[in-house]
């Protein structure tokens, strides 16, 4: 029978806290950058300019249809060789995760935009708005409301995806946990605690999403 000893984990609390901070910081960065990439890709895919729409589709499909772990490794090892640009593990991680997330955000954002009644666009156009004004003043504000729950869902997934950057030795929560596990010979306890930390950070967010979805169902 295995003897659990969680007392030992406490010795690594600062290490784990450091790791958690890196994970949170990483998540914030990739969510923000991912949303920017996603918005641009969504607008690009909706563009009447064929090459722009094609480019946006290509980006979305490439990043949606290849494993994130492969992308991470590729951005860290292959891209510097191809481009000659040296990249730190953190930069490679942020780049890959942002672009990966952006490809999923793009489809959510595009879906939100096209779900808005065509009559809204026409009403804006009939007032004399430019297409960009229609998008900014009429369509996006309405679409955003519908997009928030799925965007949050995707961001929760992104939060968990940050754990993959530990393969590039970025000192996130998982990486620091591994360090502690090797150091203490107590991997079971450490991985359990790490799982609990992820859960405690994300579970409240899922509740928030659920509440948002319910509220949306009422007002829509």
């Amino acid at each position, binding site marked *: 029978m295995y003897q659990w000893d969680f007392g030992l984990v406490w010795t690594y609390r600062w290490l784990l806290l450091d790791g958690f901070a890196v994970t949170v910081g990483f998540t914030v960065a990739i969510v923000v950058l991912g949303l920017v990439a996603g918005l641009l890709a969504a607008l690009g895919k909706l563009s009447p300019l064929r090459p722009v729409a094609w480019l946006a589709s290509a980006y979305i499909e490439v990043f949606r249809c290849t494993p994130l772990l492969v992308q991470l490794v590729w951005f860290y090892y292959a891209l510097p060789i191809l481009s000659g640009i040296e990249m730190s593990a953190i930069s490679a991680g942020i780049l890959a995760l942002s672009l990966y997330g952006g490809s999923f955000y793009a489809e959510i954002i595009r879906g939100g935009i096209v779900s808005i*009644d065509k*009559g*809204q666009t*026409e*009403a804006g*156009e*009939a*007032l*004399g*708005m*430019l*297409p960009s*004004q229609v998008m900014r*003043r*009429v369509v996006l*504000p*309405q679409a955003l*409301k519908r997009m928030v729950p799925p965007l949050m869902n995707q961001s929760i997934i992104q939060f968990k995806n940050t754990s993959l950057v530990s393969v590039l030795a970025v000192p996130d929560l998982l990486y620091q946990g591994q360090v502690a596990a090797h150091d203490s010979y107590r991997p079971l306890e450490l991985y359990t605690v790490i799982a609990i930390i992820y859960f405690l950070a994300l579970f409240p967010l899922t509740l928030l999403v659920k509440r948002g979805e319910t509220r949306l169902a009422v007002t829509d």
Partner: protein
Amino acid sequence: MAIESTMTEPKIEVAALRKRFGDLEVLKDINLTVEAGGVVALIGPSGSGKSTLLRCMNLLVAPDGGRVRVGADSFDFGNSGQLPPAKTLARFRANTGMVFQHFNLFPHMSVLANVMEGPLTVRRMPKAQAEPLARSLLVKVGLADKADAYPNKLSGGQKQRVAIARALAMEPEVMLFDEATSALDPELVGEVLQVMRALAAEGMTMVIVTHEIAFAREVADRVVFMRDGVVVEEGPARAVIDTPREEATRAFLSHFHRRGEAVPG
């Protein structure tokens, strides 16, 4: 002389207008003029191309050929069917107000914000100027007390009156109405027609697609009857409605109980 000629020039001119959707020829060589201050009612069976014609007038739909002029803005589509650049289009549309069957109010904005939206965003009017303008228009359509309400709290008739105020806030030269009362419960039709009637009396140039034959007879100067993408008959409102020359017009009008009779005069 110059003044004379601009005064007699029609406000809206549509010439040799053509439009097809795929294989379907929706508008076949449409010619139409509306005098300044004139009210034209566009009637005809569903699918005859009335909405498409109206949408070509403010270029929400790109014609395949022909000419459209509203006030000083004129576009010749030749045979290209190419829309002018977005900026030019937007400026053109800012000068034509459009009211839709389904209102299309902006649900995320209050009534006041809906009416101010055009002046603020398109005309770049300062808020201090747009707000009194919007409020005065809400007074005009009888909804001053609803300024802070959101569209989902309004009845259909109220929504449509807000939509009219929103279009008027651009101070357009002409107003286009596409079945403005067709989506309304019968008891709410009157309040919207009342606003349109007042607008006509003020001298607004209007094109009205409507199934309210009695209203068309009363308010419009001229009636245009369309079927299958062509103008079948056109003339003074009462003449066309009371004594149509064409069999097709007669057949169409016979579907309506002659509510027109109830209107005196």
